[in-house]
């Protein structure tokens, strides 16, 4: 809501800043008008700065919680991946379709992290269109609906309000495992948290039962056939939880950065406008003085 309201103001602000020398050189009548306009713009930019600063503070406090959740969930995910690493499981290169689960969220105002995911998907679609999409979160849905609506099989909303819970992840995993199509492999796409300013769209593999039984080191484990689907479902939920929590932490940190940049841009602009305002006011006063003095001199002569 903020961005849309703010953009015209920013545009108007830059336009006015570019037109500054003209404004100063203009006649006095014009200066009276611009003075009030500048004052109005200053006021609105100050309000925007206040809003972005508050949002930055909110994001910072949420970020610490999100990062803690991320570290915990990473343990979950990596422990459950450990089995597959030991068994040397590889995704099957079959004829069957692949399924990709994209973990974004419902909220924007956090820079380009959602479009990073969408771009990755679009690049994959151009190479090989043989996969279906499950999309978590409204933002990526809105972006991918335009480019590839036919690939989407499921979409989830309501993600990103709070730190994701395991209940979220397991409910999604349930719904995904109920899909009618057989997929040769399932991959979870999420934003990997590298540091506070950089993220990278990354895949986690969630293997199908066939892939697990065909893994080279599978004999090292004693697994009954009946428990195998359970393992698959549970590890899908684990991977989803990891991806959701890490994606959430990335989003909060990206939002914090975006809001910080917006605040500093706003304060830059406030500085510029303040100078412009002072100069214009000075010009108006000087102009008035000149008028009074010349008027007085003229009447003294007469």
């Amino acid at each position, binding site marked *: 809501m903020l961005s849309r309201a703010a953009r015209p103001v920013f545009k108007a602000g830059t336009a006015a800043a570019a037109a500054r020398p003209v404004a100063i050189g203009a006649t006095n009548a014009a200066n009276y008008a611009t003075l009030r306009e500048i004052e109005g713009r200053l006021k609105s930019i100050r309000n925007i700065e206040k809003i972005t600063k508050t949002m930055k503070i909110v994001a910072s406090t949420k970020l610490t919680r999100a990062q803690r959740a991320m570290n915990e969930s990473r343990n979950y995910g990596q422990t459950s991946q450990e089995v597959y690493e030991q068994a040397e499981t590889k995704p099957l290169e079959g004829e069957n379709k692949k399924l990709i689960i994209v973990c974004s969220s419902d909220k924007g105002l956090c820079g380009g992290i959602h479009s990073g995911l969408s771009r990755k998907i679009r690049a994959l679609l151009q190479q090989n269109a043989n996969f279906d999409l499950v999309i978590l979160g409204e933002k990526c849905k809105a972006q991918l609906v335009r480019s590839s609506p036919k690939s989407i099989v499921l979409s989830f*909303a309501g993600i990103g309000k709070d730190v994701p*819970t395991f209940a979220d992840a*397991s409910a999604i995993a*349930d719904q995904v495992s*109920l899909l009618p199509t057989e997929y040769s492999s399932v991959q979870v796409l999420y934003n990997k948290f590298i540091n506070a300013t950089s993220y990278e769209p990354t895949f986690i593999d969630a293997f199908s039962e066939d892939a697990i039984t065909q893994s080279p080191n599978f004999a090292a484990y004693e697994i009954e056939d009946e428990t195998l689907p359970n393992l698959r479902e549970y590890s899908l939920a684990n991977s989803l939880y990891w991806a959701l929590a890490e994606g959430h932490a990335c989003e909060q940190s990206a939002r914090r950065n975006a809001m910080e940049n917006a605040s500093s841009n706003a304060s830059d602009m406030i500085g510029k406008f303040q100078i412009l305002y002072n100069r214009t006011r000075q010009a108006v006063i000087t102009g008035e003085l000149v008028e009074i003095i010349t008027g007085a001199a003229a009447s003294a002569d007469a």
Partner: protein
Amino acid sequence: MAFAWKAAGLTYNRYLAVAARVVRRSLKEDKRIAAERRGEMELRFAKWENGKQGENRSLAKANEASVAEHSSS
């Protein structure tokens, strides 16, 4: 069949969720409120066909419905 819950049409995750809910509910009052917040889920989902979004439905209700459907069959 080795698992009674599987015969009843539950998936493993559903079985886990039910078990977790039981554990949470048996906690003491002060701990229980914090723990139950971790079990909340308010997702909505929609099925897509041929590039058209279907109806937005609550995920929790849909999961319960699918369990009911499997158990009756």
